[in-house]
């Protein structure tokens, strides 16, 4: 095609060339017209044109040559171009490859660089690790040395243990031997057991057969019994039928009799009703009679009572007439009686007061009589005394007279002596004697005066006594007069008595008050004593210095101190805990060790966790087991993809992704719905049949299994 194009171009160039050649004569005309105007220019131009034409021809030839060359060149060029294009294509492809490779390489380089960086990092880490490991290695070496020593010890013990193990191995071998013998025995026994089992199975088979036959037997027996019963029933029926027949023969007579009896019956019923009515009537009458009799009796009694009442009333009326009081009713009487009783009570009270006053008066009288007698005796005594005093007075008067006479005599004698002994030398003696006598006289006179005074005193006393006796007699008389009368004096006496009584009462009250006070004071004293009061002047209280109370108090204080410290520590710990976790562990170990309770709880927690872990393991194991069992038994692996969605993959599925999707709806997966999958779309028939018509998922699943299984076996 390209070649063709080239040729056409060549032709076109040729044509254009020919046309070009033919053209110049026509085209030269306009320049000629210009030449007329410009000769030189024209000549020059002609020449030039000539030259140019020659040149043009030359150039045209040349051009032709060139064109041919060009064509060739173009051809070659085209070929070359085509080749070059091909090469370019190839090279472009190569370039792309190279670029790709370059990019890959760049990526690789980048990756490598990254890796390198990582490796350097890891190297550094490793170096650090190495350092730490070296350190730890050193530590480990030390430990190892220690351990080696331990191991050497352990080796020793190992040796001992090996000996033991050897012995034990011996024993074990023996035991193995025994075990083998036992196992052989066991095998024999197992064989026997097998035999026995077989026998047992046979026996059970037989037994089952027997049971079956027995059940058959029992059924048969039951049937026989039924039949027998039926037979008996039949016989009974036949007897009944016979009887019935005979009875049927008797039926007309019976009917006749029945009619007669019915009539009779109706008649009797009527009579019975009549008799029932009569009986009820009689019953009613009897009851009436009884009531009437009762009423009669009541009436009689009431009449009797009425008569009694009438008599009583009569008596009352009579009484009212007799007494003339205004008594018409018993109330009046009772009022009267109450009045009378009140009056009587008042009178009695009066009587009592009177009698008591009389008694008091009598007592007073008796006292007074006693006083009177006393006074009389006293009076008598006084009289006697007076008589004695009178006698004494008389005697003394006589003596006074005598003495005065004697004194007069003596005086006369003395005077005579004086007159005689005026000049006498005895005069001093005499005067002394006289003086003595005079003294004596004076004494006597004083005595006399005393006696006289005594006498007058005694007389006065007598007088007073007499007066007293008179008074007493007067009083006695008065009392004697009063005694029968009593009434008059009783008031006075009463007043006295009452005043005395009052006094007595007052005194009694005071006494009681004082007694109470005394008691209260004693109680207080007792209470004080009970409360532990003491007289500090006489007593002191002592106790042991180290008594239990002091010790307990001391202990308590110590405990409080200890608790406070602990509290403080705990507070600090809490503060530390709040501040940050890292510090706490140190402080925690520094401070109090965890209490027993905490340890226990931790242990419990650990055990609980362990338990949980074990349970999890067991559950996982069980779940796995369950799943595999389900898989093996049903031929479906069931997975829960999302909530309430279950994916079933058959054992016989052709592809891995062939699965059925079910969605559970309703409570606890009550009903399932098949969701559409790629696989289920291929089972339209089965879905139609089993799910829409039979409404059974298991049947559907089984059908799918069978289908898949058959496909697999065919393959």
């Amino acid at each position: 095609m390209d070649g063709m194009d080239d040729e056409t171009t060549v032709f076109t160039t040729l044509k254009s060339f020919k046309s070009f050649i033919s053209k110049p004569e026509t085209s030269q005309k306009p320049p000629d017209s210009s030449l007329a105007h410009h000769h030189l220019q024209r000549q020059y131009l002609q020449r030039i044109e000539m030259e140019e034409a020659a040149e043009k021809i030359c150039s045209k030839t040349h051009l032709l040559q060139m064109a041919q060359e060009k064509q060739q060149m173009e051809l070659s060029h085209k070929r070359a171009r085509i080749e070059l294009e091909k090469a370019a294509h190839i090279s472009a492809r190569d370039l792309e490859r190279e670029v790709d490779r370059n990019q890959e390489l760049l990526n690789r380089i980048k990756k490598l660089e990254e890796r390198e960086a990582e490796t350097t990092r890891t190297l550094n880490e490793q170096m650090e690790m190495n350092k730490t490991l070296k350190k730890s290695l050193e530590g480990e070496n030390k430990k190892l040395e220690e351990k080696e020593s331990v191991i050497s010890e352990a080796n020793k013990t190992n040796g001992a243990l090996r000996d033991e193990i050897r012995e034990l191995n011996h024993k074990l071998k023996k035991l193995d031997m025994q075990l083998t013998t036992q196992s052989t025995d066991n095998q024999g026994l197992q064989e026997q057991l097998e035999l026995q089992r077989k026998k047992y199975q046979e026996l059970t088979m037989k037994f089952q057969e027997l049971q079956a036959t027995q059940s058959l037997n029992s059924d048969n027996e039951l049937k026989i019994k039924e039949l027998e019963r039926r037979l008996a029933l039949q016989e009974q029926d036949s007897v009944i039928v016979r009887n019935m027949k005979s009875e049927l023969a008797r039926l007309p007579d019976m009917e006749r009799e029945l009619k007669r009896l019915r009539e009779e019956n109706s008649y009797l019923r009527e009579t019975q009703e009549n008799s029932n009515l009569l009986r009820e009537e009689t019953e009613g009458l009897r009851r009436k009679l009884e009531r009437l009799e009762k009423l009669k009796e009541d009436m009689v009694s009431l009449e009797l009572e009425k008569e009694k009442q009438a008599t009583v009333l009569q008596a009352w009326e009579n009484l009212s007439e007799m007494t003339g009081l205004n008594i018409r009713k018993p109330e009046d009487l009772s009022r009267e009686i109450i009045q009378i009783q009140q009056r009587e009570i008042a009178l009695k009270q009066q009587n009592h007061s009177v009698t008591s006053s009389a008694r008091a008066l009598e007592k007073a009288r008796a006292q007074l009589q006693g006083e009177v007698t006393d006074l009389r005796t006293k009076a008598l005594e006084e009289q006697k005394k007076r008589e004695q005093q009178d006698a004494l007075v008389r005697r003394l008067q006589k003596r006074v007279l005598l003495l005065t006479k004697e004194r007069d005599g003596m005086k006369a004698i003395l005077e005579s002596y004086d007159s005689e002994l005026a000049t006498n030398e005895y005069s001093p003696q005499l005067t002394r004697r006289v003086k003595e006598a005079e003294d004596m006289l004076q004494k006597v006179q004083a005595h006399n005066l005393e006696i006289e005074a005594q006498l007058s005193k005694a007389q006065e006393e007598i007088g007073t006594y007499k007066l007293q006796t008179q008074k007493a007699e007067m009083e006695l008389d008065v009392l004697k007069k009063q005694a029968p009368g009593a009434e008059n004096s009783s008031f006075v006496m009463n007043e006295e008595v009452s005043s005395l009584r009052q006094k007595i009462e007052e005194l009694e009250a005071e006494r009681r008050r004082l007694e109470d006070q005394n008691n209260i004071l004693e109680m207080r004293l007792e209470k004080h004593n009970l409360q532990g009061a003491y007289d500090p002047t006489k007593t002191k209280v002592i106790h042991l210095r180290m008594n239990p109370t002091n010790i307990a108090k001391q202990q308590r204080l110590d405990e409080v101190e200890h608790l406070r410290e602990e509290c403080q520590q705990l507070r600090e710990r809490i503060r530390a805990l709040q501040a940050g976790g890292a510090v706490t562990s140190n402080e925690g170990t520094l401070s109090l060790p965890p209490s027993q309770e905490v340890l226990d709880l931790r242990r419990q927690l650990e055990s609980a966790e362990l338990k949980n872990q074990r349970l999890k393991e067991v559950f996982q194991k069980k779940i796995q087991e369950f799943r595999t069992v389900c898989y093996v038994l049903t031929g479906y692996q069931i997975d829960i993809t999302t909530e309430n969605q279950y994916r079933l993959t058959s054992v016989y599925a052709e592809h891995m992704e062939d699965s059925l999707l079910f969605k559970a709806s309703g409570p606890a997966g009550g009903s399932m719905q098949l969701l559409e999958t790629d696989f289920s779309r291929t089972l339209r028939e089965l879905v139609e049949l089993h799910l829409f018509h039979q409404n059974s998922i298991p049947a559907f699943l089984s059908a799918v299994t069978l289908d898949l299984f058959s496909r697999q076996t065919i393959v």
Partner: protein
Amino acid sequence: MSSTLKGITLKGSAELVAEFFSFGINSILYQRGIYPPETFTRVTQYDMSLYLTVDPNLKTYLNDVVTQLKGWLFDCTVQKLVLVITCLETNEVLERWQFDIECDKTITGSSGTREKSIKAIQEEIRSVIRQITATVTFLPLLETACSFDLLIYTDKDQVVPEKWEESGPKMIADSEEVRLRTFTTTIHKVSSMVAYKRTDCI
């Protein structure tokens, strides 16, 4: 007991009374729960089973007090023995068991004897201890931790021995008092009583 069945000496009386105090104090401590019941052991005394402490500290303390008391009983210088129960939390006196001791000072040394059989005295002591046991029924419950102290009222001129010191009477502010039985050896007469803090709830 150094006395014969018929008579009793001052020494014998002092020993009898001291022995009574030993058992009485133990009984009170047990009955009032001042010390836990497991620290007590049962013994038979006065024809009845009584509780004695096995706490070593308490034992030595009671021994010290009773020995000293015996001496004073012999000297007839002791007037009262008081067991004070104090609440440890509030330092409040809750109970006060007081034993008034009346000594017959006419008897001195081991000379005179009195006519009273030990059996009769022990009978009286038994009834006193029974009453102490019975008081638990009406005494208010000791709800807080409590401790006890023994006070001895002696004559003023008595020299205070070593380890002893003077103390206050430790009276109860608002108390109820109950007089218990009395027993006498004819030389020492011991009348017992208990005072306890009146509680508002009653």
